[in-house]
C-alpha cells in the first residue's frame, strides 16, 4: 500500500508541476505583452565566490574517465563546461576505444541527468535516511553471514572484487552471485574444457583475410569498438588492386555484422552447431574419435548449408595459416565454442589471429549462480539479500520466480540508478551514483586497468556500489578516491596508516608514486596492466567430448525463439534514455518499440498478413512453455525461416516514466536453461493492430544514385564505374572563388556497419531534441543525421548497404536560393549556414533539398515533449543554440567546433592545422568510416579518399555540387556462391 501512496504522490507532483509550469508560462507571457516594450528585468550574472582551480567560464575542460558496460571498461574523454559534463568522446589512446564510442557511451551523459533517477533512500516505500541504511548495512546479519547473500553485476573492477573479498572475510559463510541477463562475453567453460584454464579469446581481426561469424554480432556489442576498428582496417580496399577480407555470417535475425557480410546464411541459431561440426569434419584431418557424433551432426545439413560449407572450406583451405578466424557468438553454448576454437587450431590461427588471455570479467568470481540463489531464497535460507545494481526482478529468467523469491527474503536492499521493478519488490531502496559521479576502476577486454574519474559531484547525494560494499565489509569510511589511491600506492611500497579519527593518512614514501598517479589520472588508464597473450595447448579429447554432448542433446524442432540484446536500449538498463528510445535501430529503423521479427516465408506460413511499414502492424501472441507474450510483428527480408527473434529490454514497469509502457517484455518468455534461443515456440495471430514508428519506410533504392555498390571483381575489372557520378556538370552559374579552409566530408560505405553511434553523437553535440513516438510516426523526427539502410540483392540473398545521410553542404545549394529571408547562405569556407534566428519557417528549403536532410521544429519540442524537460537540460551544449518553434535546422558540419578552432588559430596567428577539427559523427565512428576535414589539408585521409576511383557524389545529377563524397560499397562475395 505504501508504495502505491508513493507512486500517487510522485505522479501527482509531476502533474501539478506541469500544470503549474504551464500556468506560470502563460502568466509571464501575458505580463510581458501587457508591459509592452519596457526594458525587461535585467538578466543576472552569478560569478563564483572562489574560482575553482580548473574551471574557466566559457572554456571546456576535458577529463579522462571510463565507463563499464557488461563489466568491461572503455576509456572515454568527457567534455565539461562550468563543471557539468556535456559530451562524451572516446579516448584515442585507450586500446578498447581508439577514440571511438558507441551509442551507449554517447547516451551515458543523458543518463547522468535523467530526472527519473532515484533521489532518496526509501524503506518499504516510505522515505528513509542514509544513516538508517548505514546502520542496516553495517550489521545486515548476525553471525558468519550464513544467511547473507550478495547479488552484483559482473564487473572487471579490481576495487569491487577487493571489497567483495573483504565482505567475504567478515562474513565467511555469505555467498556472492554475479548475474547479467546478456553476459556479453564468450562462456569461459569452452576454454576451460579445451585448454584447462578459464581464458578469454583475443581476436586480431586486422590480420584475418576470412572471418567466419557463427551467430556472432561482433560489430555491435557494447565493447565492439576495437573489433570494429580492426575489421575495418582489413576491410577497406585501398586502390582498385588492393586486398580485402571476406566475411561469412550465419545468423538467425538480421544483425549489424550480418548486413556487412559478403556471404550470409540465415539459419536458426540451433543449426549453427551443425555447421560448426560440418566445418570441423571437412577441415580437421585427424580421425573422428567421437564414434560417429561428428558425422551425424555434419550429415544433418540441407543442401544450401552443404553448398555454403563446401565453398567456405575451399576458401579457408586456400588461405595461409593464421590468416583466417572463426568466431562463435556469445549466444551459442560452450560446446560450439570448443568446436570454433578447434577449427581455429586446425586452420593454424592459434597464436596469430586468435590467442587467449585471462578473463577481464572473471566468471568464476561468484560463489553460486542466480538459479542456486533463487532456490535458496525460495527455501527461506536467506535472511538478508543485497542487490547492488542490475534489475533481476525484470531480467531474471522467468522460470526462477524471482519476484516471489525476493518477497520471501525478510530484509533485502536494492541499490540502483532507478527505483525500478526490483526496487519495488525489495525492502530498502538506495539510489546509486552514476559512474560519472564516482571514483572507480575497471579493466578493458584486454585487461588494461582504466580509471573511472567523477566529472561532477553526485546530483542527488547518491553513493557508489564500492561505498556500500565498504560499509558491509566494515572497511574504514575513507571514500573511493582514497581506496583507489592506496590500491595504486600499495604495490609501489607506500605505507598507509589510519590516524586517530579513522581517516586514512598517506605517508608518501615516494614522490614518484604521486607523480605517476597524477599521470595516470591525466591518461585515464595504464597500458602496462594489459593481460599477456597466451597460446595454450588444446586437448583433442575435449573436442570429441563436446561433439558427443552436442549430438546427444536434442537440437529442438519447431519454431525457434531468439532473444537478442536490443541494439538501442541494451538489456533494458538504458530503456529510459530518450535518445536511445528514439534512435532508429540499425537496419530495421524502428524506434520507441520492440517487435517480433520473422521472415516473409515464416509469416506467410503462420498466416500473418504483410503490411506496409507506415500502417499499424499485426499483433501476435508468442507462447513458450506455458508463458505467452503479445507483441507486434515486423516481417524482415533476410531473416531466417522457422525463427522468431525479439529484442530484450522493453516493456519496463519501474518508476522510469519514459520506459514505462514502451514495447513488451520478452524476458517473460526466457527460461534459465535456454537464455539465448529456445525451440518449440508457438505463434497465434491476434485480431488487434499496433502502430509502430519507423523513420525509413522504403528499403529499395529504385535506381537512384544514392548508395552505389559493387563487387571486388567488378571493381578491379573497371575501377571507374562511378565516373559519371562525379563528372563536372555543365552549369550556367559562375564559379565561386573560395579561399581558406574548405570543409568537406568523405564517407566509406564499405566499412559503415550502420551501428548509428554517429546519430547519437550528433544528438549529444548539437542539442537535437526528441519528439516522441507519435511525432516519429508523423514523419517529424529531428535527427540531423540518419543512417539509411537500403536493401540490395534479391529477396533471398538480402544484403543491406548503410549510408549516413546528413547535410551535404552543396556548393550550388538548392536550399539557399529558395529561402525568402536569407536564413540559409553559403560561407566562404564552404559551409551551408543555417541561421536559426533569421528563419521564418516557410520550409521551402526542405522541399528543394534532394537529400531531405532538413528538420523542422513543428512544435516547441522542449515544451511539447516531456522527454526534453527537467534536468536533461543540464546536458545542453552551450556552444550551440537550442532552436525555437517554427525554425528549420540541419547538420552544420559541427560549425561550433570549426569556429572554435578558427578562433584559436586566429589568436595563435596560424592556419587551422589538419585534423584539428573533426565533427562529432566522425569522432564517434567505431570504424572511422566518416572522415571530416578541409580540402586544403591534402595529407588527411578525407582528401585521399576522394581521389579513390570508387568515390562519387550522391544524387550527382541534381547539380547541387555537394561537399560530402561517398566511397561506393565494395563486397567480396565468394564466386562459387553467387
Amino acid at each position: 500500500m505504501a508504495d502505491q501512496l508513493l507512486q500517487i504522490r510522485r505522479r501527482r507532483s509531476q502533474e501539478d508541476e506541469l500544470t503549474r509550469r504551464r500556468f506560470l508560462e502563460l502568466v509571464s507571457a501575458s505580463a510581458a505583452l501587457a508591459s509592452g516594450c519596457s526594458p525587461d528585468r535585467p538578466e543576472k550574472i552569478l560569478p563564483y565566490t572562489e574560482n575553482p582551480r580548473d574551471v574557466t567560464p566559457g572554456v571546456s575542460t576535458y577529463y579522462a574517465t571510463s565507463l563499464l558496460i557488461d563489466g568491461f571498461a572503455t576509456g572515454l574523454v568527457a567534455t565539461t563546461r562550468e563543471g557539468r559534463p556535456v559530451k562524451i568522446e572516446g579516448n584515442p589512446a585507450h586500446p578498447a576505444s581508439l577514440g571511438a564510442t558507441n551509442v551507449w557511451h554517447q547516451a551515458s551523459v543523458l543518463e547522468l541527468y535523467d530526472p527519473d533517477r532515484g533521489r532518496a533512500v526509501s524503506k518499504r516505500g516510505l522515505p528513509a535516511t542514509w544513516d538508517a541504511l548505514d546502520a542496516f548495512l553495517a550489521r545486515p546479519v548476525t553471525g558468519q553471514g550464513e544467511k547473507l547473500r550478495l547479488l552484483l553485476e559482473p564487473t572487471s573492477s579490481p576495487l569491487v572484487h577487493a571489497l567483495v573479498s573483504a565482505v567475504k572475510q567478515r562474513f565467511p559463510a555469505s555467498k556472492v552471485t554475479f548475474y547479467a541477463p546478456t553476459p556479453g562475453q564468450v562462456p569461459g567453460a569452452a576454454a576451460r574444457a579445451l585448454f584447462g584454464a578459464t581464458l578469454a579469446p583475443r581476436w586480431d581481426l586486422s590480420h584475418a583475410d576470412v572471418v567466419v561469424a557463427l551467430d556472432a554480432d561482433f560489430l555491435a556489442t557494447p565493447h565492439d569498438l576495437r573489433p570494429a576498428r580492426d575489421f575495418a582496417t582489413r576491410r577497406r580496399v585501398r586502390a582498385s588492386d588492393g586486398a580485402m577480407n571476406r566475411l561469412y555470417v550465419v545468423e538467425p535475425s538480421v544483425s549489424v555484422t550480418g548486413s556487412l557480410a559478403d556471404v550470409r546464411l540465415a539459419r536458426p541459431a540451433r543449426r549453427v552447431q551443425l555447421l560448426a561440426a560440418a566445418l570441423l569434419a571437412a577441415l580437421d584431418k585427424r580421425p573422428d574419435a567421437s564414434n560417429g557424433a561428428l558425422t551425424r551432426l555434419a550429415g544433418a545439413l540441407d543442401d544450401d548449408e552443404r553448398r555454403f560449407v563446401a565453398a567456405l572450406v575451399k576458401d579457408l583451405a586456400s588461405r595461409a595459416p593464421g590468416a583466417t578466424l572463426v568466431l562463435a557468438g556469445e549466444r551459442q553454448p560452450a560446446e560450439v565454442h570448443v568446436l570454433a576454437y578447434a577449427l581455429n587450431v586446425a586452420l593454424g590461427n592459434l597464436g596469430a589471429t586468435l590467442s587467449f588471455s585471462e578473463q577481464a570479467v572473471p566468471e568464476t568470481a561468484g560463489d553460486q549462480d542466480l538459479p542456486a540463489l533463487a532456490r535458496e531464497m525460495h527455501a527461506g535460507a536467506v535472511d538478508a539479500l543485497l542487490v547492488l545494481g542490475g534489475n533481476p526482478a525484470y531480467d531474471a529468467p522467468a522460470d526462477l520466480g524471482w519476484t516471489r523469491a525476493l518477497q520471501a527474503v525478510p530484509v533485502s536492499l536494492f541499490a540502483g540508478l532507478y527505483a525500478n521493478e526490483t526496487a519495488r519488490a525489495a525492502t530498502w531502496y538506495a539510489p546509486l551514483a552514476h559512474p560519472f559521479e564516482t571514483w572507480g576502476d575497471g579493466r578493458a577486454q584486454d585487461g588494461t586497468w582504466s580509471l573511472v574519474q567523477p566529472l561532477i559531484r553526485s546530483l542527488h547525494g547518491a553513493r557508489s556500489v564500492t561505498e556500500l560494499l565498504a560499509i558491509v565489509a566494515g572497511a574504514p569510511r575513507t571514500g573511493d578516491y582514497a581506496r583507489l589511491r592506496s590500491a595504486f600506492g600499495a604495490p609501489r611500497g607506500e605505507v598507509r596508516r589510519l590516524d586517530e579519527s579513522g581517516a586514512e593518512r598517506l605517508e608518501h614514501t615516494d614522490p614518484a608514486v604521486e607523480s605517476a598517479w597524477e599521470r595516470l589520472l591525466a591518461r585515464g588508464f595504464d597500458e602496462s596492466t594489459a593481460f599477456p597473450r597466451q597460446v595454450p595447448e588444446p586437448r583433442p579429447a575435449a573436442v570429441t567430448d563436446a561433439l558427443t554432448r552436442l549430438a546427444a542433446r536434442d537440437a529442438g524442432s519447431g519454431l525457434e525463439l531468439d532473444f537478442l540484446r536490443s541494439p538501442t536500449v541494451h538489456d533494458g538498463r538504458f530503456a529510459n534514455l530518450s535518445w536511445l528510445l528514439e534512435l532508429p535501430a540499425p537496419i530495421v529503423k524502428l524506434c520507441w518499440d520492440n517487435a517480433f521479427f520473422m521472415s516473409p516465408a515464416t509469416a506467410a506460413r503462420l498466416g500473418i498478413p504483410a503490411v506496409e511499414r507506415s500502417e499499424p502492424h499485426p499483433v501476435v501472441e508468442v507462447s513458450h512453455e506455458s508463458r505467452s507474450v503479445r507483441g507486434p510483428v515486423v516481417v524482415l527480408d533476410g531473416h531466417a525461416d522457422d525463427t522468431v527473434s525479439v529484442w530484450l529490454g522493453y516493456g519496463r514497469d519501474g518508476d522510469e516514466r519514459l520506459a514505462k509502457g514502451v514495447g513488451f517484455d520478452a524476458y517473460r518468455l526466457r527460461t534459465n536453461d535456454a537464455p539465448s534461443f529456445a525451440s518449440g515456440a508457438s505463434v497465434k495471430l491476434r485480431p488487434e493492430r499496433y502502430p509502430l514508428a519507423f523513420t525509413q519506410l522504403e528499403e529499395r533504392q529504385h535506381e537512384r544514385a544514392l548508395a552505389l555498390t559493387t563487387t571486388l571483381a567488378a571493381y578491379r575489372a573497371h575501377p571507374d564505374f562511378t565516373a559519371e557520378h562525379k563528372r563536372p556538370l555543365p552549369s550556367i552559374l559562375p564559379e565561386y572563388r573560395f579561399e581558406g579552409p574548405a570543409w568537406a566530408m568523405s564517407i566509406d560505405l564499405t566499412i559503415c556497419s550502420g551501428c548509428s553511434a554517429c546519430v547519437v553523437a550528433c544528438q549529444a553535440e548539437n542539442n537535437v531534441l526528441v519528439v516522441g513516438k507519435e511525432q516519429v510516426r508523423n514523419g517529424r523526427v529531428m535527427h540531423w543525421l540518419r543512417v539509411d539502410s537500403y536493401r540490395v540483392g534479391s529477396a533471398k540473398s538480402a544484403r543491406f548497404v548503410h549510408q549516413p545521410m546528413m547535410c551535404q553542404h552543396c556548393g550550388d545549394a538548392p536550399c539557399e536560393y529558395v529561402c525568402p529571408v536569407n536564413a540559409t547562405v553559403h560561407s566562404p569556407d564552404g559551409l551551408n549556414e543555417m541561421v536559426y534566428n533569421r528563419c521564418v519557417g516557410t520550409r521551402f528549403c526542405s522541399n528543394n533539398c534532394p537529400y531531405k536532410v532538413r528538420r523542422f521544429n513543428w512544435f516547441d519540442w522542449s515544451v511539447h515533449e516531456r522527454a526534453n524537460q527537467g534536468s536533461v537540460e543540464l546536458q545542453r551544449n552551450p556552444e550551440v543554440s537550442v532552436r525555437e518553434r517554427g525554425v528549420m535546422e540541419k547538420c552544420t558540419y559541427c560549425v561550433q567546433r570549426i569556429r572554435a578552432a578558427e578562433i584559436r588559430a586566429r589568436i595563435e596567428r596560424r592556419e587551422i592545422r589538419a585534423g584539428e577539427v573533426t565533427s562529432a559523427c566522425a569522432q564517434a565512428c567505431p570504424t572511422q568510416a566518416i572522415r571530416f576535414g578541409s580540402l586544403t589539408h591534402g595529407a588527411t585521409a578525407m582528401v585521399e579518399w576522394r581521389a579513390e576511383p570508387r568515390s562519387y557524389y550522391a544524387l550527382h545529377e541534381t547539380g547541387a555540387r555537394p561537399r560530402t563524397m561517398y566511397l561506393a560499397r565494395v563486397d567480396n562475395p565468394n564466386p562459387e556462391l553467387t
Partner: protein
Amino acid sequence: MIETPVLVGAPSDAELTLALTRSVWQPPRKAWLALLGLSGLFALGLFALIAYTFSEGVGLWGNNIPVAWAFAIINFVWWIGIGHAGTFISAVLLLLEQSWRTSINRFAEAMTLFAVVQAGIFPLIHLGRPWFAYWLVPYPATMELWPNFKSALPWDAAAVSTYFTVSLLFWYLGLIPDLAVVRDAAPGIWRRRIYGVFALGWRGSARHLRHYRIAYGMLAGLATPLVLSVHSVVSSDFAITILPGWHSTLFPPYFVAGAIFSGFAMVTTLMVPIRRLFGLEHVITTRHLDNVAKFTLLTGLIVDFSYLCEFYIAWYSGEAPEYYTFFHAFITGPNAGIFWTAMVCNVLVPQLYWFSAVRRHPIATLCVAILVNVGMWSERFFLIVISLEREYSVSAWRAYSPTWVDWGIFAGTLGFFLFLFLLFIKYVPFVPVSEVKELARELAEEGHA
C-alpha cells in the same frame, strides 16, 4: 439558330436603374441572411483555427518531412487561381470588346478580390514563425539584412499584393458611377451619404468620362499581363525547384490556364444561383452561361494538353525519379485516388461542354463547374503533395494525410469567401448600371437601324 440576345427586351434607363440597384436598399431576404449567418460562422471558425495554429505551432497540421507543404499551399494556389477568371473577364474581354461581359464583369471582379483575400491568408499562417512575416519586405532593419529576391516567395508576396491592389482599383473605378446611381436613387439620407462618400462626388461629367475611359482602359490593359504574371509567379514556387514533378518549364502557362479554367468554373458556380436568387435572367442570359462554358472548355483543353506534355516529358527524360513520380507515384502511390479524381474532373467532365444543350442549361453548367473546381483542387493536391511524397531521396519517402485542422481551415476560407461575396451582392450593385444602359442603347439602335 437564333442567337439569344445579350439583353432581353429594351428596358428604359429608369427601369434598368431600378432593376439593377433595387437589391441594394431593399430589406435583406431571409435566404440571404441565413447564408450570411452560416458563412459568418465558418469565417469565425477559420479565425479560431488560425489562432489555435499560431499558439500551438504548424505541427497541428498534417505536414511532415518530406511533405513540408500541403493544404496551406494547395489552398493558396487554388484560391488565387479562382481569382484570375474575374480579372480575365473584366479586363481581357473589355479589351476584346466582348459586349456580353458587361453584366457579369463586376461580380467576377469581386470574386477575384475575395478569392485573393482567402489566398493571401495562407502564406502567412503556414509560416513557422508568422510574427516575423514582415522580414519578407525590404525595410531598413537594425540588422541590416534584406530579403532574398532570388527566391520565388518574395515574388509571390509582390505579385499577390500587386494583384490585389490593381484588382481593387480596377473594380472600384468601374464601381464609382454605379455608386453615384445608388447615391441618387436610394431612399434614406444616411444611406445616400455613405454611398455618396464612396462615389467621390461622381456626377457623370463628360469631361471626367474622357479621363475615366482612358483610366479604365489603362487599368484593364495592365491587369491583363498581371493576371498572366501572377499565376506564373505562383507556379514558379514549384518551377524554380529541382523536384521531379515540379521543375518543368511548362508550369507557368499550365498554371495560368488551370487558373482561368477553375476561375470560370467558379464564375459559373456563382452566376447560376445569383441569377435565380435576384431574378436577373434577362440581364445574365443563357448566352452568358454559354460563353463562360465555352471559355471553361477552351482553358480545360489547354490544361489537358499540359497534362499530356508533363507525362510525355517525364517519359522522354528517361530519368528514374521523373519517371517514377509520374508513372508510379501519381498513378499508384499513396493518395493516388486524388490524382484520378483530378483526371476525371479536369479531363472528362469538361467535355460535356461540347454540347450546347449542356452549356445553356443552368443546373448542368453549375454541376460541371463545381466538379471542375474539385478537379482543380485535386490537381494542386497531387502536384504538390504526391511529388513531395515520392522524391529523390528514397529513405525519406512518406505519405501525407491532412488533420481536422487542415480541413477546418479550408472550409473556413470557403465560408469567409461566401460571407464577403454575400455582403458584396447585397450592398453593392453587382451589375454595372451605366454599362448596361449603354449596351441597351446600342442594341436599341441596332434594332431600329
